[in-house]
């Protein structure tokens, strides 16, 4: 096959390496990143789903129809069920309000239960809940009720044997502020207790686990049937920290792959243009020999197809390897193995390769069609680049489409393309103007400068348009690289800030007022840092502006879980750490003069349609309390400190029964202190968050490494663009410099002037890129990553210097042939 033979010859001559490498890198980035993000999301979500004991949960305040739940099996889903209610546990004279969870034999679908058979033995994991007739109690219930393992306890009308101490529930960690102690029974025993009566406040949770498609299909089927009483819950709602980290990592990786593909596309366009220019003569000669235009162009198209296949194959292998390396990085922290990626990433890689070739490589190749055979006699024919505008338009359009396809964000894509386009065009024009104007000064300057400077200046001003275009190209590559580096740095800093060392990792809940002093001094004695001790008064939010909340919500056809449960109300003189006032004012220092003020968490206010100045009614025990909203607060819920929806000024709640909550940081090596604490204060609940924090930290660390690895791939792409950009003018430079060497210029002079020339181009490019990147990052962080923007003042100096170093080195390395090879051979190799 002639086209294959031509391809082999061009390959041997090194004509196609850059084009193929750029294509392979584009495919590798797309395959690698999409395979990895697909796998990462699946694995981490599965891992995180341990915290809701399932992949999805349907919560309800009344039982869901059995047919709904049973139908989940036809979607290939496993299911489980829990019913949570508050009930008095009674043994002889003693009784204790307890949060009882009745669980089906399949519970938990994700994660494990932990129990102890005796108080002093370490906990061990089990796959399912208690057997019928048995009850597992949280450790503090035993002293409260004076029970031992093997004793019996009554729940409603049924009697249960205490068979184990409940040490951990997969879905227990999130419920930080469920103050009541926990107990677990089998769902089969629930009817016998007769505790659930009409009007009882009961939480029904239907658990589902299975493949994503099944879950989505089941949800789609179920959605239309769900009334506001039901909520479909996934990990994003229950583990916002992991969800946010994943979201941002995902967006970063999408941005990276978008920019990577854009860079590779530019490298493909430049190298294809150079390839086609270098084949003008060949085309003319072959036409001269009788080759028909269509057939000859067909040969080039076939070559392009082979290059596409080769680039795709190489890229797919490289992408798979990248995905494997990224997966390896994560393996230590994700107990679920990353699933083997499906065919989607390969399909996306294939599509990217096809689009890149069609959009970036084909338009320059089209100019080959119109090369007249007469070019063999007149070499000036065919150099007009009639397809120039077509190529640029097609390239820009396709670049936009590709970026849109990868970023899935039209606004981001258009802003990036238009913004970068305007800035780069303006920068390019400015450089062109400077270089043109420089002509006048070069003659004067030359007289006073050394040979190196004179040569470099002369070369720069000799081709102002070509050099300005090169500056734009280099600026584009450097800009995309800078954007990615800035966003990555901000992302990592943001993650670091989220979980600084010493983040509280244990909550102490249910501290009675008379224990407060003892607990404080015990903690101080152990030199443990605590956050503030917040009082908690349990109360229900029942009215807004004298209208019952149930009525208000029903009128709007909405429902909120706040309606079904008591809230933890607190009071505080100071605005708690990580709370910011969105509107209104925090109460003034000193004794509160307006006892009816209340501060409401902003998100809850939005959900319940509460505004500044609204009058809110609470039910605290048998009493009612009204307060006017004086501020709305934004709260960092996942800062591992006690956080509250509702805060009163001091003294308002003084007379209500209250307990205290705090959080402490317990260093890893001092975990055994917990046992001493629990023995010393058996009625205080300790909620351990260290496992979750460790997991979040682990995931973030590894995702960070993944991001670094991806960044290197993008650096590779940017270097390819620089290389392609340098090579676009290399023939001319080699020709000119070979002539200079032939005329007696020394190697040092040529090397110095080349370095200086490229470094100057890089300096200009770095300057333009810094401006463009700063604007782009400002936009991207505000609009896409939802992060605060921090300027990068060092960039204004570092950008141009980085550009000068990078372009100078790339240019020198690409052109060093001119000083290493005898000038005779260089001149011979130049086209006549």
């Amino acid at each position, binding site marked *: 096959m*002639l086209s294959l*033979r031509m391809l082999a*010859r*061009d390959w*041997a*001559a090194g*004509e196609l390496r850059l084009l193929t490498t750029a294509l392979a890198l584009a495919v590798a980035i797309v395959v690698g990143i999409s395979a990895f993000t697909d796998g990462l999301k699946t694995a981490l979500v599965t891992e995180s789903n341990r915290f809701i004991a399932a992949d999805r949960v349907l919560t309800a305040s009344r039982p869901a129809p059995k047919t709904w739940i049973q139908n989940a099996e036809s979607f290939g889903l496993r299911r489980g069920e829990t019913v949570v209610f508050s009930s008095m546990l009674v043994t002889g004279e003693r009784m204790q309000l307890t949060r009882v969870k009745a669980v089906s034999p399949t519970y938990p679908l994700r994660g494990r239960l932990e129990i102890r058979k005796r108080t002093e033995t370490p906990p061990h994991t089990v796959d399912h809940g208690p057997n019928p007739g048995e009850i597992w109690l949280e450790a503090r219930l035993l002293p409260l009720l004076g029970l031992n393992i093997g004793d019996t306890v009554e729940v409603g009308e049924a009697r249960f044997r205490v068979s184990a101490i409940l040490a951990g529930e997969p879905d227990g960690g999130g419920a930080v502020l469920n103050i009541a102690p926990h107990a677990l029974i089998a769902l089969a025993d629930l009817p016998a207790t007769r505790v659930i009566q009409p009007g009882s406040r009961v939480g029904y949770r239907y658990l589902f686990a299975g493949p994503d498609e099944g879950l989505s299909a089941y949800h789609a089927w179920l959605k239309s049937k769900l009334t506001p009483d039901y909520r479909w819950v996934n990990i994003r709602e229950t583990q916002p920290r992991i969800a946010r980290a994943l979201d941002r990592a995902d967006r970063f990786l999408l941005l990276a792959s978008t920019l990577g593909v854009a860079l590779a596309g530019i490298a493909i366009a430049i190298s294809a243009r150079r390839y086609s220019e270098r084949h003008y*003569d*060949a085309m*003319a*000669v*072959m*036409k*001269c*020999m*009788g*080759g*028909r*235009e*269509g057939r000859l162009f067909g040969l080039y198209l076939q070559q392009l197809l082979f290059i596409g296949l080769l680039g795709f194959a190489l890229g797919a292998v490289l992408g798979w390897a990248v995905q494997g390396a990224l997966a390896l990085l994560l393996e230590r922290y994700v107990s679920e193995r990353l699933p083997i990626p499906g065919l989607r990433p390969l399909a996306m890689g294939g599509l990217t390769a096809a689009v890149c070739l069609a959009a970036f490589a084909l338009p320059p190749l089209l100019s080959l069609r119109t090369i*007249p*055979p*007469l070019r*063999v*006699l*007149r*070499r000036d024919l065919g150099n007009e680049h009639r397809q120039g505008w077509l190529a640029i338009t097609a390239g820009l359009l396709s670049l936009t489409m590709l970026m849109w396809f990868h970023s899935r964000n039209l606004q981001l894509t258009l802003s990036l393309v238009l913004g970068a386009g305007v800035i780069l065009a303006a920068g390019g024009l400015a450089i062109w103007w400077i270089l043109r104007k420089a002509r006048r000064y070069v003659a004067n300057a030359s007289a006073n400068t050394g040979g190196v400077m004179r040569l470099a200046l002369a070369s720069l001003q000799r081709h102002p348009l070509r050099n300005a275009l090169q500056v734009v190209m280099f600026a584009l590559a450097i800009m995309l690289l800078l954007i990615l580096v800035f966003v990555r740095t901000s992302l990592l800093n943001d993650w670091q800030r989220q979980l600084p060392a010493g983040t509280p990792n244990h909550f102490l809940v249910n501290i009675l007022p008379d224990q407060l002093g003892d607990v404080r001094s015990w903690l101080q004695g152990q030199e443990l840092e605590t956050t503030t001790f917040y009082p908690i008064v349990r109360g229900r939010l029942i009215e807004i502006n004298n209208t019952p909340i149930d009525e208000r919500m029903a009128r709007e056809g909405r429902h909120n879980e706040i309606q079904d449960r008591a809230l933890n109300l607190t009071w505080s003189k100071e605005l708690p750490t990580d709370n910011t006032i969105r509107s209104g004012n925090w109460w003034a220092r000193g004794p509160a003069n307006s006892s009816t003020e209340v501060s409401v968490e902003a998100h809850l206010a939005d959900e319940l349609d509460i505004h500044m100045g609204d009058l809110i009614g609470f039910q605290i025990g048998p009493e009612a309390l009204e307060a006017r909203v004086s501020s709305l607060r934004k709260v960092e819920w996942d800062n591992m400190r006690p956080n509250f929806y509702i805060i009163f000024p001091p003294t308002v709640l003084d007379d209500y029964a209250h307990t205290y909550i705090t959080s402490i940081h317990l260093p890893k090596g001092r975990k055994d202190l917990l046992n001493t604490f629990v023995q010393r204060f058996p009625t205080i609940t300790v909620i351990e968050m260290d496992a979750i924090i460790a997991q979040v930290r682990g995931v973030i660390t590894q995702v960070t490494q993944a991001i670094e690895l991806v960044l290197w791939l993008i650096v590779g792409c940017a270097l390819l663009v620089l290389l392609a950009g340098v090579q676009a003018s290399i023939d001319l430079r080699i020709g000119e410099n070979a002539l200079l060497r032939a005329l007696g210029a020394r190697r040092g002079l040529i090397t110095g002037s080349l370095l200086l020339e490229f470094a100057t181009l890089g300096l200009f490019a770095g300057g333009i890129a810094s401006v463009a990147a700063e604007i782009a990052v400002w936009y991207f962080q505000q609009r896409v990553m939802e992060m605060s923007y921090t300027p990068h003042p060092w960039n204004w100096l570092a950008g141009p210097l980085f550009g000068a170093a990078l372009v100078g080195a790339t240019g020198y390395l690409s052109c060093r042939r001119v000083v290493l090879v005898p000038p005779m*051979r260089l001149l*011979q*190799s130049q*086209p*006549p």
Partner: protein
Amino acid sequence: MLRCSALEKTVETSEGLLHILKGITLEIKAGDSVAVTGASGSGKSTLLGLLAGLDLPSSGQIWLADEEITTMDEDQRADLRMRHVGFVFQSFQLLSSLTALENVMLPLELNGKTESREAARRYLDRVGLGTRLSHYPNQLSGGEQQRVAIARAFANAPTVLFADEPTGNLDTRTGARIIEILFELNRESGTTLVLVTHEQRLAERCQRSLELEAGQLVSAVC
């Protein structure tokens, strides 16, 4: 074999219309060797390009191998060139990414001939480059490159060979050797030769010589 009538070539320039060729009429018989001579800018190369079907005249007609090429489109002319025409250029026009052997194979491959490698080897042997098959153009001297170009021109067994200043880039001695090879192969294969040159020595080797001056045929020496 080759004739043209009232051939005109005009191009637009910034200074108005430029008449490159004016009313050229000539006929070249099969097997003839004809030199087209003239000063630089007299229109020699333009005439060669038109006769070979590489370009179209502004007016007039051209027949090559009894087919009128002035009414043909580019593809039809390409077919005709493939069947009948060979070229040798002043600047050799070898493809730099191909070896000497591959350069000679190219027209045969384009023509769909199966034994292209063997035929190309034979022609390179014939021009004395049998030992330089795998050399790239930049590894060959000017004379050697032109010999590869001659081998390539004859490899497809053309009926007409157009040569544009074939010795223009070569020293006298090498040029003489190239002329020898060119005429030897021409004789052996009975090809019609149309040769553009300003070298009197080379023109004298041809059976006929046509002289151009300012785009007009001023003399035909037989």
